[in-house]
């Protein structure tokens, strides 16, 4: 298993893969700068594509109109009527945020612990953590939630009202901690090996090396992959609404559309927009944080993207060589 490529800003290693191109670059290398004929051809394609899009849009709008889904009365409550927000959307949004927030707060340290355990020098610790991680990564998060829900009902006396929240958070934590463990492992493996050597040279113990040298630096490198996992957490809370009766955003669609004249399409649109906004806020904050951290002196310039983690962690493979 190869190590996640560490990209150095100044001197790329001689045998490294060619550095991944940025979007702007890849857009200009696959075709020439358009001349007069290419511009005409591009224009033709633009017009054709626009026509196709317009056709689809017309079909959708005609379909919506035929079922009276475009009536102003079905859409305007979201703008004019504050009660839609007070009764349905804001409490639901609050529940989504609570579940996602709790899951993040619990899954991050657990994931870090599992990830570090997978890099341990002791075979037993490595194998144990590896088994846990691979097991929970191989199982759908919905199965974990259904199990947690039933288990809380059978073995604990958590009240039926709060049980869905516990079940959702439990499922999310078990699944995402094991994915985050892989992120942490990839982040630590992406650091230059010289960091560990230097730490050993000045007499640090293994725990000290991890706590003072490897982890702080890898956090910056891990952020992109970390954030795409946090987005997954936010999205997966919707499973609780659909299958466990957890009162989050998706679950608010049914009562809302029942009370506002069967405006199903409008409700779904608003809920989808809220989810997108929530995730965009999360990713924007993360990229701001990443820029801030990169400006500091702690970064090695290594980047671990979600793809690097996936490369590293094909399920079922034994843990890779240690640094």
């Amino acid at each position, binding site marked *: 298993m190869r190590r996640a490529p560490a990209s150095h800003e100044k001197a790329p290693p001689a045998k490294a893969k060619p550095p991944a191109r940025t979007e702007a670059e890849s857009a200009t290398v696959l075709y020439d700068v358009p001349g007069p004929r290419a511009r005409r051809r591009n224009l033709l394609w633009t017009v054709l594509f626009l026509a196709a899009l317009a056709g689809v849009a017309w079909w959708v709008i005609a379909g919506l109109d035929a*079922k009276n889904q475009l009536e102003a009365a079905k859409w305007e409550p979201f703008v004019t009527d504050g009660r839609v927000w007070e009764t349905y959307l804001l409490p639901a949004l609050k529940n989504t945020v609570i579940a996602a927030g709790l899951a993040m707060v619990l899954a991050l340290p657990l994931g870090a612990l599992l990830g570090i355990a997978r890099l341990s020098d002791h075979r037993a610790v490595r194998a144990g953590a590896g088994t846990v991680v691979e097991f929970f990564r191989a199982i759908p998060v*919905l199965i974990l939630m259904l199990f947690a829900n*039933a288990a809380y009902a059978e073995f604990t006396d958590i009240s039926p009202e709060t049980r869905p929240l516990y079940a959702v958070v439990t499922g999310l934590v078990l699944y995402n901690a094991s994915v985050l463990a892989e992120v942490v492992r990839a982040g630590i493996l992406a650091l230059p090996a010289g960091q560990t050597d230097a730490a050993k040279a000045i007499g640090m113990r293994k725990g000290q090396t991890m706590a003072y040298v490897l982890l702080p630096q890898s956090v910056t490198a891990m952020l992109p992959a970390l954030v795409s996992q946090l987005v997954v957490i936010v999205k997966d809370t*919707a499973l609780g*609404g659909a299958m466990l009766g957890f009162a989050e955003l998706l679950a608010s669609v049914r009562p809302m559309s029942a009370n506002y004249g069967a405006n*199903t399409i409008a409700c779904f649109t608003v809920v*989808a927009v809220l989810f997108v906004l929530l995730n965009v806020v999360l990713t924007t904050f993360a990229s701001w944080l990443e820029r801030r951290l990169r400006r500091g002196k702690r970064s090695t310039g290594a980047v671990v993207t979600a793809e690097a983690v996936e*490369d590293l962690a094909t399920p*079922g493979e034994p843990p890779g060589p240690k640094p």
Partner: protein
Amino acid sequence: MFDFLEGYDLLGAFWVTVQLTFWSALGSLVWGTLLAAMRVGPVPLMRAFGTAYVTVVRNIPLTVIIVFTSLGLFQTLGISLGADRFTTINFRLAVLGLTAYTSAFVCEALRSGINTVPLGQVEAARAIGLSFPQILRIIVLPQAFRSVVGPLANVLIALTKNTTVAAAIGVAEAALLMREMIENEAQLILVSAVFAFGFICLTLPTGLLLGRLAKKVAVKR
């Protein structure tokens, strides 16, 4: 010990899971490749469409998409995808939702694969006068596909697990059967272990086989 399994069509439920995975994988491979071609192509409008599609779809929960196909597309707009039995309609709606969602991830995986093809190859192709569709079809995509077998395997595994979301609209696959069995049977731990084992049987071999294939076909550079 396992007599609680009697009366349930466990294999049938997992077979539905496999079918969901197969058709959605096929659909999202096609649609995802088209999206990736749009995103790297010379037509600005198509590039913008591809980018917008991927950004929006990746940020909406799959559950919302799947439930929308049932509540929105079928029950409100009457789109039944040419089927007349409820089970068939829900199955096809689930495949539609899974395809729409997964293709965004296929597109992203493929685009990162396109970026691994060395510049010189594309420049050489342009120098001998190949057009953009030719470059993509003959030079870039064959190499890109070979280098993204690993990431695509991960997308396929994620898809296999995501098919459980179809339970939300009543497709009789594994997760729905599990919920039913949990309600009716006393052996919670055993029931859950059976389903966990079923999914491990589906995902682990996929990862191992495709991981091996990925190493075999990877372009040596």
